[in-house]
């Protein structure tokens, strides 16, 4: 049956009108992100998982560089037989993507031969290679952390002369900025080096389970492979430790709802031995565990806990109160591990033959080999490295602000990285010439106009997909990473009144008042027993899970952060709804069915 024959359809890319008030949005983005006439023939979906907001010009680097890296790894390095890379386009500030398949059987066969050797090498040596990977990523983090922005003093450092360096400070403005961009690219190449192979092992096990147990839930498969000592729990664990120490050291009275982080830190300095012990522990926890983004590491304004202590300090009073009441428990890692193993062995026992059991053991075993990477890479890449990356760019923004090119440091994120390059050239030239830079007149109006357009773009509701619906969308990676399946597309086409559908990611049914948050900085608003409705969650949202009854997200599949944490807390979760944050309002009473993946507005 032709799914496009009749009934509802998605708009074609060419049918999208410019958002009112933001007609000039194209000026913010490179030409290669624009929809082309032929793009009307293909199916695109809005990558709201990674890009839930309109893109500031600089932040498009978090699409440009990752897609450059992931496509290179799948199409050119490991030569996946059936998959090339991902193309992305920006319209009205939103990122749409499509995956390029290989369908010609001869070409698939030719690629498969190469893929077998290359992927085989990585699987065979996974543990060793992953240890090496961690070392390299930590090296990259050290590098990005150590990059400095030249001061450009009136007279250059005497060492330039006494060490006959021969290269003046202004040169390093460009070199160090380029170094940031280059490191970001290297990080993303490493990020995607293992990504598809890691998910590939999971996809194979997932499909086997679905075939052997047609009614098995996605979350049951996920629970069999989930790691227990996962880095994403660590920041939250550190907070719990700090809460315990606050009580033990007798400084817990400072942690009250609504407390201001600088005020608390200042007060602790006057609290003698107890305060000193707490501050020392705090510094140890902060580096590296507070390098966790309040988003997913794709926007400059998703600051890390280390940058903005509001989020961890919003969680601390609650944990402190739980410690006092003897209610703060550690994650029961032993029983979680035992439960994971029980589930896996129960499914294994239900298989029909010893052959299937042996195949199950191999697939599950491989998943457990690759999962430390799958689960932990985000902390190193999107959180730790990327927080540092944006901090460095912000420092270049500060240089541009000091030189008068920009009004404030944050404005640097309104420029594409190639435009930042130009602005820095201006500053370098000006310092050398002993004249003021010319950028203020050029860039300040551009920045002001772009800020205004971004606000206007915020009001545009992006369709969940564009173009003709594919006959069959059975790409398991798309399902796993983005939660997009044939059913999702159906639900996008035919949204039911008062009902939001997504992926049932953690089972159970509960009712309660909704709390819609579009930004993690609002987590202080969440009240006990509410149902969290949010675009996407990241590890830094973990503290809120202690308060809520259920989680609903616009974005995510059964392996997304919200899904994993909700299963851990034993609360229902529905992820990958597409637009729950738009269709549900704070205060509405909703019923979350984590088994069927349905959220109903009941009052």
């Amino acid at each position, binding site marked *: 049956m032709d799914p496009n024959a009749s009934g509802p359809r998605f708009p074609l890319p060419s049918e999208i009108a410019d958002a009112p008030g933001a007609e000039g949005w194209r000026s913010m983005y490179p030409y290669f992100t624009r929809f082309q006439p032929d793009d009307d023939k293909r199916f695109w979906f809005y990558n709201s998982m990674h890009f839930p907001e309109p893109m500031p010009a600089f932040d498009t680097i978090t699409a440009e560089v990752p897609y450059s890296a992931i496509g290179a790894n799948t199409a050119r390095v490991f030569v996946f037989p059936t998959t090339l890379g991902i193309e992305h386009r920006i319209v009205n500030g939103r990122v749409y993507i499509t995956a390029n398949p290989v369908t010609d059987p001869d070409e*698939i066969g030719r690629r498969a031969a190469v*893929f077998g050797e290359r992927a085989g090498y990585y699987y065979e040596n996974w543990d060793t290679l992953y240890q090496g990977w961690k070392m390299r990523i930590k090296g990259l983090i050290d590098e990005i952390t150590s990059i400095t922005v030249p001061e450009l003093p009136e007279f250059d450092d005497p060492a330039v002369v006494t060490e006959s360096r021969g290269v003046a400070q202004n040169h390093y403005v460009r070199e160090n900025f380029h170094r940031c961009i280059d490191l970001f690219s290297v990080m993303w190449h490493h990020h995607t080096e293992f990504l598809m192979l890691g998910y590939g092992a999971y996809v194979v096990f997932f499909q*086997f389970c679905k075939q052997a147990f047609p*009614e098995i839930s996605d979350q049951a498969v996920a629970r069999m492979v989930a790691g227990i000592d996962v880095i994403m729990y660590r920041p939250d664990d550190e907070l719990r430790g700090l809460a315990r120490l606050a009580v033990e050291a007798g400084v817990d009275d400072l942690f009250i709802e609504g407390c201001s982080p600088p005020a608390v830190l200042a007060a602790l300095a006057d609290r003698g031995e107890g305060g000193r012990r707490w501050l020392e522990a705090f510094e140890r926890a902060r580096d590296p565990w507070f390098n966790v983004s309040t988003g997913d590491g794709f926007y400059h304004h998703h600051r890390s806990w280390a940058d903005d202590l509001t989020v961890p300090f919003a969680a601390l009073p609650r944990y402190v109160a739980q410690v006092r009441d003897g209610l703060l428990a550690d994650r029961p890692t032993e029983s979680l591990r035992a439960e994971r193993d029980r589930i896996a062995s129960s499914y294994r026992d239900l298989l029909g033959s010893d*052959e*299937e059991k*042996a*195949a199950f053991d191999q*697939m599950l075993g491989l998943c457990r080999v690759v999962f430390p990477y799958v689960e932990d890479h985000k902390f190193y890449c999107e959180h730790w490295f990327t927080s540092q990356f944006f901090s460095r760019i912000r420092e270049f923004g500060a240089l541009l602000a000091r030189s008068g090119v920009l009004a404030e440091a944050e404005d640097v994120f309104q420029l594409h990285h190639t435009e930042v390059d130009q602005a820095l050239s201006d500053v370098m030239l000006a310092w050398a010439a002993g004249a003021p830079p010319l950028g203020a007149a050029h860039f300040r109006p551009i920045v002001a106009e772009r800020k205004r357009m971004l606000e206007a773009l915020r009001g545009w509701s992006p369709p969940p997909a564009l173009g003709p619906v594919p006959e069959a969308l059975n790409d398991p990676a798309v399902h796993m990473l983005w939660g997009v399946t044939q059913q999702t597309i159906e639900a996008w086409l035919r949204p039911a009144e008062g009902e939001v559908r997504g992926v049932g990611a953690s089972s159970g049914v509960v009712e309660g008042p909704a709390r819609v948050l579009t930004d993690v900085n609002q987590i202080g608003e969440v009240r006990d027993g509410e149902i969290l409705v949010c675009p996407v969650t990241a590890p830094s949202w973990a503290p809120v899970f202690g308060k809520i009854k259920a989680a609903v997200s616009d974005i995510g599949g059964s392996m997304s952060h919200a899904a994993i944490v909700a299963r851990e807390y034993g609360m229902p979760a529905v992820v990958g709804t597409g637009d729950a944050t738009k269709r549900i309002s704070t205060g509405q009473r909703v019923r979350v069915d984590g088994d069927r993946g349905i959220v109903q507005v009941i009052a």
Partner: protein
Amino acid sequence: MTQLFTCWTAEVGAADAARAGGKAAALGELARAGLPVPRGFVITTAAFVSHMDGVDPDGAARGALGALAADDLAGIARAAAGLRGRVAAQALPPEVAAEIAPACAALGDGPVAVRSSATLEDSAEASFAGLQDTYLVVRGTDAVLDRVRACWASLYNDESIAYRRRQGTGEDGLAMGVVVQPMLDPRSAGVMFTRSPVTGDRSVVAIEGTWGLGSALVGGEVTPDSFTVSKVTGEITGRRVGVKLRVHSFTPNGQGISATPMAVPLRRTPCLTDDEVRALARLGRQVEDHYGAPQDIEWALLGDDPRRFALLQSRPETVWAARDSGPIASPQAKASDHVLARFSRGL
């Protein structure tokens, strides 16, 4: 109480199908495994043999049945009617009646159900489901003795004989046991498969149920509630509440079985709570574990308490068992070969 012609249900087991009939043997087996089955007693196949020795001493009538062609429906009908009449009319051998009377007394004064338990019934190979009779709300020993003969006579129903002729099953050595149990007055009842009847998934238990007696469900008079429960996590992964317009109920002091419209508020109310669903699924798993194969089970809930489930019958699931073919995956030289193979073929 094991005697020649009667014994307690719990005194027989799976190996006793020849002596007690399939249904009784299965119930006894469940009871022995510690599963909740209603108490009751079995009238053994020896009683049937003894009775038939009086009805058809030289086996000539039965031999004649065995000689009929499967498609000779008129001949079957004629011969069967004669034999059935004699089975029902012939007085029970006194030594058989002498054992049944005290067993009835031991069950108490209330009405009972008299259920046939054929030696071929309820086996995995040939499902005779529904071809033999069950009598509900039987009061007093004399009535029980009547119904026992009626059960035996049902072995010679036209359809049963035609079925045996088609299957090539001989009449020699054919026998029937009978189970006598106190009448149950369930709050809810239904069936349960320890494997999805829809997808064949072995990791789930599928439950269907309705208010009152299960006969409303089996007879198709209601759209039952259905539940799917994961055997592994215990989660209720599927739930559809039916519209149960009618209810079959047993009223101990009234007219026996009544079929009445269901009270409106309860029509769309699930007939089992979540706790009850999970408890029932656990029972299903116990039965399956006991037999080592997926089961098709009849159940009843005797009050507002998940501990008050009773299992009325269990037999091996046959539909999906017959469809199972080779393994869906085999071990490879290296674990990663699974992935390489998957990504080397089109989606």
